[in-house]
């Protein structure tokens, strides 16, 4: 089957591509916009900002969210900040530098034109959020304050205490609420998207499950925007929220939307370590802590002394030692890997030996407790609540954890997937972060897509595509609903012995052990084999009590796990096929002498794009060659 992977990047110089494209895009006059209906699935930064903006423009928006309110989407948990190339601190920042840092940070595996556009609109985002009433941190003179994040040598991160994601999301949410009140957005809470409906090859609707009544509902539209976030929860333990799942994206994949770079996952270096089997999720400690905290392990293996008893000369500040120019602010993939190396050497700390120290002793000595409390007080409190340790007195213990997925549904420059009309925004798409995302860039991308990109490109699609008249009584809707119903019945009929969580946890072990921070051929093959067997077992032995007729939480959960069990295999397969190391994808076979990732630009300077070919056949790997016209491919170095 032919699949069209034309990225549709506009011609012309990089700096002018987006302006040119906007000018060349077709417009719809205001009176006609109200004749179009758009479905937006998800209400995080991407979905929330898109829904609000499209409704402001005059489209009828149907918005769906899995929680009880759009204000709870997981964007809310982002702590540290959002990048913008404002160059307010006068430290050499520019659109071009943000572009360069992002491409380099992503280890040259992202599309130049998309990233440049992202850097261009980053400034508009800051302005827009200020105008929405986001209380960004200010200096005494009233000007916006900035701080630094990993992978850059300028201060370009805007922040609202340790709750930047929350404040941005509430900004987008407030914009939505304004349009809900005006009747331009119809809000559907506690709904989960179960399938995509395509008619004549175009995305024209969705099937959703009402999570309270268990009933399936059909919604038709002229286009569908998928803003459902990433799939980090395939690992079971991650920093994602419990409801974050891959099902919506996965069902779209099965309806023809190609999946790009599924193996590119980000393992965040500073999370609170795992402490027991019963653990349900991992908690991130903001990267901003690395502005002042120093990461170290004891030089001696198996050193069981308390951190305060270990003298300075017996501590290995390994990030400062290995990467003198970036030090503790080395990018996430690099920092995570270094932490893993130290623990593999037997120098890990804490009861499980799977942790390193993040120490504020020197910062407190230098700036005083009050200054540190002003910057990180709420994070310190949060750490103490979870671990019962006081970070003012004893160093934090941290360990990497799954945090973000750079991979996602493939989209072209217009953010449209390989299914016409299905646009994918935010973390759910693969577009901007390559093989590794820099800190404070996820918020930027979600809002860029929703506020400033999709409103233009969607208008062009609607204006230039013939859209037939359809209703939810069409066969495509009936068939899609029937398929969901069949799967649900199948889940309920098994009545086996193991819970959905059991399977999910076992899948998580495969993923973490073999498709995690470092991967090798043998391990990946083992994972693929193991996951296949686990999936078979799932369909024979899962236990889902109850029926469809009410708020059946186990049923909702089991359906998501079923999809994770398929996605996990694709991730391992993608990792196996990518015979190089880049960014967060570290193949042990491909590393330099000093254990850095070794890219193979000759064979792998492309996005791997997977096409679904049916339940009983293997997916097909396509390539979108990445063209670097403006930046030279170079070995990434943070030394």
């Amino acid at each position, binding site marked *: 089957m032919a699949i069209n992977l034309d990225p549709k990047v506009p011609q012309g110089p990089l700096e002018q591509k987006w302006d040119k494209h906007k000018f060349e895009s077709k417009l719809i006059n205001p009176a006609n916009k109200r004749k179009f209906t758009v479905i937006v699935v998800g209400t995080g930064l991407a979905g929330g900002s898109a829904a*609000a*903006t499209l409704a*402001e423009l005059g489209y009828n928006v149907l918005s769906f969210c899995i*929680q*009880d*309110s759009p*204000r*709870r989407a*997981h964007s*809310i*948990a982002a702590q540290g900040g959002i990048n913008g190339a404002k160059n*307010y601190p006068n430290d050499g920042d520019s659109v071009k530098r943000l572009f360069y840092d992002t491409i380099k940070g992503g280890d040259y595996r992202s599309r130049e034109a998309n990233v440049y556009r992202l850097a261009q609109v980053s400034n508009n985002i800051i*302005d*827009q959020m*200020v*105008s*929405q*009433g986001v*209380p*960004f941190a*200010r*200096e005494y003179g*009233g*000007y916006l304050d900035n701080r630094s994040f990993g992978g850059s040598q300028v201060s370009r991160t*805007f922040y609202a*205490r340790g*709750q930047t994601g*929350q*404040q941005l999301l*509430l900004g987008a*949410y*407030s*914009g939505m*609420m304004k349009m*809900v009140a005006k009747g331009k957005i119809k*809000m559907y809470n506690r709904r989960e998207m179960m399938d995509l409906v395509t008619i004549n090859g175009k995305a024209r609707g969705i099937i959703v499950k009402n999570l*309270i009544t268990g009933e399936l509902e059909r919604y038709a539209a002229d286009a569908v925007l998928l803003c459902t976030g990433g799939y980090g929860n395939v690992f079971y333990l991650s920093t994602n*929220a419990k*409801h974050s799942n891959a099902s919506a994206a996965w069902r779209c994949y099965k309806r023809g939307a190609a999946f790009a770079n599924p193996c590119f996952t980000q393992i965040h270096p500073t999370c609170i370590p795992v*402490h*027991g*089997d*019963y653990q*349900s*999720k991992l*908690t991130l400690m903001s990267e901003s802590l690395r502005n002042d905290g120093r990461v170290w392990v004891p030089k001696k293996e198996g050193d069981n002394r308390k951190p305060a008893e270990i003298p300075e000369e017996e501590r290995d500040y390994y990030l400062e030692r290995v990467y003198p120019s970036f030090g503790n602010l080395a990018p996430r993939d690099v920092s995570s890997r270094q932490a893993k190396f130290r623990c593999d050497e037997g120098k890990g700390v804490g009861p499980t030996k799977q942790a390193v120290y993040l120490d504020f002793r020197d910062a407190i000595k230098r700036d005083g407790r009050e200054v540190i409390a002003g910057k990180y007080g709420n994070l310190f*409190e*949060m750490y103490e*609540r*979870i671990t*019962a340790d006081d970070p003012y007195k004893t160093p934090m213990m941290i360990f990497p954890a799954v945090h973000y997925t750079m991979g996602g549904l493939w989209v072209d420059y217009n953010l449209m997937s390989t299914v016409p009309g299905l646009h994918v925004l935010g973390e759910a798409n693969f577009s901007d972060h390559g093989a590794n995302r820099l800190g404070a860039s996820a918020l930027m991308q979600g809002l860029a897509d929703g*506020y*400033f990109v999709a409103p233009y490109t969607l208008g062009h699609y609607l204006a230039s595509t013939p859209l037939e008249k359809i209703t939810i009584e069409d066969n495509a809707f009936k068939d899609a609903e029937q398929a969901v119903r069949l799967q649900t019945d199948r889940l309920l009929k098994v009545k086996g012995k193991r*819970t959905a969580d059991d399977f999910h946890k076992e899948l998580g072990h495969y993923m973490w052990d073999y498709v995690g921070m470092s991967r090798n051929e043998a391990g990946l093959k083992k994972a693929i084999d193991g996951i296949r067997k686990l999936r078979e077992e799932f369909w024979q032995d899962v236990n889902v*009590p*109850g029926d469809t007729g*009410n*708020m059946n*939480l*186990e049923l909702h959960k089991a359906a998501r796990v079923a999809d994770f069990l398929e996605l996990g295999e694709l991730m391992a397969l993608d990792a196996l096929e990518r015979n190089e190391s880049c960014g967060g994808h570290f193949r042990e076979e491909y590393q330099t002498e000093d254990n850095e990732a070794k890219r193979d630009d000759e064979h792998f300077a492309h996005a791997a794009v997977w096409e679904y070919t049916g339940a009983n056949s293997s997916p097909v790997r396509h390539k979108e060659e990445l063209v670097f016209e403006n930046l030279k491919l170079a070995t990434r170095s943070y030394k």
Partner: protein
Amino acid sequence: MSAGNMNLNLKIWRQPTGAAEGKLVDYRVEGVSPDQSFLEMIDVLNDQLVRKGEDPIAFDHDCREGICGMCSMMINGKAHGGYKNTTTCQVHMRLYKDGDTIIVEPFRAKAFPIVKDLTVDRSGIDKVMMAGGFISANTGNAQDGNAVLIPKPIADEAMDAAACIGCGACVASCPNGSGMLFMGAKISQLALLPQGQPESPRRSLNMVHTHDTLGFGNCTTHAECEATCPKGISIEHIARMNREYLKAAFTYYEKSRSEGGA
């Protein structure tokens, strides 16, 4: 499954649907670890129930790091357990003793009808926000972020108010079931910021009107909301709302005009 040695007796509110009768049901959970979170303890209980083929306890939760505002339980008579600046998901079992009996109920108020077990319908919060909890700045309108200067103390105070996670603990713990704290926090945040001030009178009038219509109660300054707010939001913000409302009620006026023209 668990690694600890605490045994607990739980009395948990079970109610199959909003319309059905509910009651407290006794459960026992064994081997709880002090490092477990309260929700992870309920997870263990639910796991046991599912293995027995019973319906697990429905409770709202999502981020489990204290920011989404989804979790909502009255633990031993206090919203989120009553610990300072803490949501239910951040309550850890080390705060309880072996052999304790813990009563768990849903957040209750007229404006928060029960959906199932510990899950309640808090859509009233969204409805109050819809009435004016925003600044009407359409995408594309914005001027430079530094064009309007905001002194640090004002920005900080606005942030204090903006920290609201919309969990509804204020309503659940208020003896009057009043929503003044979450509403006051939003009105206060936007009234403090220059960009929110043009709409402030209209916002206060409409939001308060909607709040009242939805069946939230009146504020009688118990300040129990402030005490249980997981983000420690002060009732000073309620006072600022009262001020804004008073001012608006007596000075704000919109003449009806027809907008025509060539």
